[in-house]
């Protein structure tokens, strides 16, 4: 007969911890008993003899060894529960439950427990070398636990989620067939200053819509005729603002030139290198080895979105530029080097 029970790691952990504590207390009580034999009993006439002493030492060592083994077993069980996550593996029609162990967490647990044991032993044996070893192991175990991200999403997964959005925008653009390039509108055109919109005129050289005619909810503007879309890089530009702790509407171009390289390279680790250059009304940004390379490659397969809006990162930077300069921005050109590592983007600041 099979009895199904729910897996409750907290209860099992509590029971295992209680077992460890009881084992440790047993070892302490045995040491006290040993002190009684080696101290008090001699005062009551106990005479030392190897006949009884050897048996006593053997049993004492076996008892302490077994208590140690019991503690080690329960500690390993606790570690496995803490570092492992249950995963269901499906093969054919049968479901198989497996325990998936994160190697980083396992390493942290081993370092931490070894460090704590070394520190405890260093106090017991008054050894400074053991104390240094224990301190180092405990510190590196804790540091590894602190600096490893709790959740990590692979770039492949991110790329897969972005592809459909790109295709949908391309479908909208193909349906309206705009002739003009997309213009990233500055905050003064919008009701919500923190938002961002891109206006794609249906005819080339068309004027921008008046601020009162721009509504975030509208997809189509009748006067002048064009499409109003939320840029694909809007969320990214908001993330930049969050990381920098300021809104781009309160900054200027010099601020962006100064802060973006550090943000992109060091803080967000998005690109390997970035250079920004301003010449009259043109801003040229050169990016090397950026993580959105595959998404941008996918965007280039869709000519309309590539021409009008730009890829995810280009769009994010354009949103930031429109907010910081307070002027409409268009992506003039986006070129990629032959090896595919470097991308040069030219933004044009429109004078109104």
């Amino acid at each position: 007969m099979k009895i199904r029970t729910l897996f409750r790691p907290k209860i099992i952990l509590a029971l295992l911890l209680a077992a460890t504590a009881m084992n440790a207390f047993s070892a302490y009580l045995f040491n006290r008993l040993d002190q009684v034999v080696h101290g008090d009993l001699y005062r009551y006439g106990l005479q030392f003899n190897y006949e009884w002493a050897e048996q006593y030492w053997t049993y004492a060592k076996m008892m302490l060894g077994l208590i140690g083994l019991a503690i080690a077993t329960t500690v390993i069980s606790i570690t496995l529960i803490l570092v492992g996550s249950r995963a269901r593996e499906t093969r054919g029609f049968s479901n198989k439950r497996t325990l998936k162990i994160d190697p980083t967490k396992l390493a942290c647990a081993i370092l931490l427990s070894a460090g704590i044991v070394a520190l405890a032993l260093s106090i017991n044996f008054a050894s400074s070398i053991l104390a240094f070893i224990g301190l180092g192991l405990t510190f590196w175990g804790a540091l590894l636990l602190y600096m490893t991200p709790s959740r990590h999403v692979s770039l492949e997964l991110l790329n897969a989620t972005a592809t459909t959005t790109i295709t949908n925008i391309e479908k909208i653009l193909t349906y309206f067939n705009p002739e003009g390039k997309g213009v990233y509108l500055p905050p003064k055109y919008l009701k919500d200053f923190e938002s961002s919109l891109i206006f794609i005129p249906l005819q080339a050289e068309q004027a921008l819509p008046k601020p009162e005619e721009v509504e975030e909810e509208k997809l189509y503007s009748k006067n002048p005729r064009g499409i109003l879309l939320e840029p694909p890089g809007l969320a990214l530009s908001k993330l930049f603002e969050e990381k920098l702790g300021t809104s781009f509407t309160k900054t200027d171009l010099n601020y962006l030139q100064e802060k973006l390289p550090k943000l992109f390279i060091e803080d967000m680790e998005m690109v390997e290198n970035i250079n920004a250059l301003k010449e009259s009304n043109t801003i040229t940004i050169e990016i090397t080895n950026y993580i959105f390379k595959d998404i941008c490659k996918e965007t280039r397969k869709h000519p309309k979105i590539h021409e009008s809006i730009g890829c995810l990162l280009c769009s994010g930077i354009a949103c930031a530029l429109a907010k910081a300069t307070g002027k409409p921005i268009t992506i003039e050109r986006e070129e990629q080097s032959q090896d595919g590592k470097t991308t040069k983007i030219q933004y044009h600041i429109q004078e109104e």
Partner: protein
Amino acid sequence: MQFPLSFSDISLWLAATSIILLITTELISPYYGQTNLHIKKGRLRTAALTLGILLLLTVLIRIFEIMART
């Protein structure tokens, strides 16, 4: 039973560890080397700076001790 490390031992350990961490933080790259282990560089930097500040604190305490004796 007493902890076998003295104040100066801890200070020495802090100095060695904070230097290693600060150099690692500056040299570490997300693009080269072993990239299977994911780490948050910002947190590593915070840990390195915290250890550096702790080291400076221990140095300050030693200086105050020497000044109090003289």
